[in-house]
């Protein structure tokens, strides 16, 4: 669901975007295009379609320690329709994601309402997703999972120069939540200098809560400063905080520059361990780096160039955009198993960094 306009009581503008994205880090390269077209069909109905592709070529730490590098493709298609009635905006959407070993279908419904002289917007949305999980090379393996998300958001104009937004979201999962390609390891009972891989065991439910507050402030010399803070916790014992700060600087009439910094910090899941002491050490077992204790730092730069300002004819406005984000992940209890010749649990801690590129052209018509 994306109601990406701060004016809730108007339909989003007609636009078309072509984006190229690339993620390169930790031995994985993921890139591809994303296309979006949004069009009004009347004064009260607007629809948008999005086609997104991920081409994955992975030799990540998880892959090289357990399997052989692979390539695959993920395609995502979504359709959403917005309906505006006075100060109420209703959105319905469907998204379908297809991989050779994973299919997901998500339905969403959202409603938002402007009130108090249009200084306040309240929004609520619900999404229901059905996932079918397979395993490449194992045709008998097929599992399902259901995801439900409930979201409440409030945005508030505080002053002539300050807008704040507050969001709450609860997500529940039910079903098969493991990643079939990941494994845990435990100390070989017969040889403490060796370790043995085994299957992961996850609970089959997960409930998470997140709350975020964000603000954007217009500085006296036409530039905007924004900040955000999010807290997260789930019933797997993971707690996380995200801090964001950014600066939007209109360098000239046509060129706008952006600077962002993001810091993320999480604790591990209760049933996570880099190295279990013996087989079946507990009911649930996981060794995904995503569920370990770690931090990430992101430095982002962006440029936004308007190449058509007041176009006549079909195209009203156009822009080209480029952004680069550098992310550094530091794991505190996930070890780098490519380092051999050390006793289990003595390997160096893993770390990785990534470069994320987004390049896109947008036109408004």
């Amino acid at each position, binding site marked *: 669901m994306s109601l990406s306009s701060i004016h809730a009581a*108007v339909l989003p503008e007609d636009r078309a975007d072509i984006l190229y994205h690339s993620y390169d880090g930790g031995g994985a390269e993921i890139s591809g295009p994303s296309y979006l077209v949004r069009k009004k069909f009347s*004064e009260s109905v607007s629809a948008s379609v999005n086609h997104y592709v991920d081409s994955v070529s992975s030799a990540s730490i998880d892959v090289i320690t357990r399997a052989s590098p692979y390539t695959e493709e993920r395609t995502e298609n979504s359709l959403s329709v917005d309906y505006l009635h006075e100060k109420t905006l209703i959105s319905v959407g469907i998204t379908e994601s297809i991989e050779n070993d994973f299919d997901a279908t998500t339905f969403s419904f959202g409603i938002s309402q402007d009130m108090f*002289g249009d200084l306040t917007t309240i929004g609520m949305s619900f999404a229901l997703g059905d996932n079918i999980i397979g395993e490449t090379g194992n045709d008998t393996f097929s599992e399902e999972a259901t995801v439900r998300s409930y979201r409440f958001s409030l945005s508030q104009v505080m002053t002539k120069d300050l807008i704040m937004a507050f969001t709450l979201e609860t997500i529940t999962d039910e079903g098969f939540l493991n990643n079939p390609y990941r494994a845990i390891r435990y100390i070989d009972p017969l040889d403490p200098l060796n370790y043995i891989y085994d299957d992961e065991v996850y609970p089959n439910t997960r409930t998470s809560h997140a709350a975020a507050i964000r603000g954007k402030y217009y500085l006296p010399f036409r530039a905007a400063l924004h900040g955000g803070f999010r807290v997260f916790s789930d019933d797997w014992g993971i707690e996380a905080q995200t801090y964001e700060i950014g600066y939007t600087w209109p360098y000239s009439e046509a060129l706008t520059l952006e600077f962002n910094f993001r810091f993320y910090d999480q604790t591990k899941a209760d049933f996570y361990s880099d190295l279990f002491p013996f087989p079946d050490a507990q009911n649930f077992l996981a060794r995904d780096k995503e569920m370990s204790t770690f931090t990430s730092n992101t430095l982002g730069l962006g440029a936004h160039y308007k190449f058509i300002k*007041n176009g006549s004819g079909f195209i009203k406005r156009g822009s080209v955009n480029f952004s680069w984000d550098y992310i550094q992940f530091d794991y505190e209890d996930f070890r780098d198993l490519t380092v051999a010749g050390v006793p289990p649990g003595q390997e160096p801690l893993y770390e990785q960094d990534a470069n994320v590129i987004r390049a896109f052209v947008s036109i408004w018509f």
Partner: protein
Amino acid sequence: MKKMTHHFTYSLFIGFLTAIFTLSVHAVTVDKPAPDFTLKSLSGKNLKLSEHAGDVVMLNFWASWCGPCRKEMPLMNDLYNKYEKLGFVILGVNVEQELQLAKSFLSDTPVDFPILFDSSNKVSKAYDVIAMPTTVMIDRNGKIRYIHKGYKAGDEKKYKKMVKKLIRE
């Protein structure tokens, strides 16, 4: 002590709400006389509303950052050119502080009717402008007859109907 803290918290809360949601009653309504004002115009001259006594006046509060305002500007210009000779005038009251933004919009989209600058927002306050754009129709006797909030495609037909009616009176 705990109870007192609660009391204190709630009275603070109520005080805060009252401060935010202050009720106010404005005199600008239909069938009341239109408050007079003097504002500097784009040509540099001061312009007074009462100078147009006897004319049908359409006051339009607008800003260059307001999409619907930009859209209706050329349509209002057509309306002005059509009925100007029959004792009709449009006064485009710009509400912005940075006049340059309004001026550069007008150089791209020129209009023939007078543009006035209400950069202190005194007139916008007096007319209790609660939407952008806001259009106020004043009859030949200086009385407010219609207040129209916002603009969506087709509203120019409503303006035309009102203007035709007021001109005939």
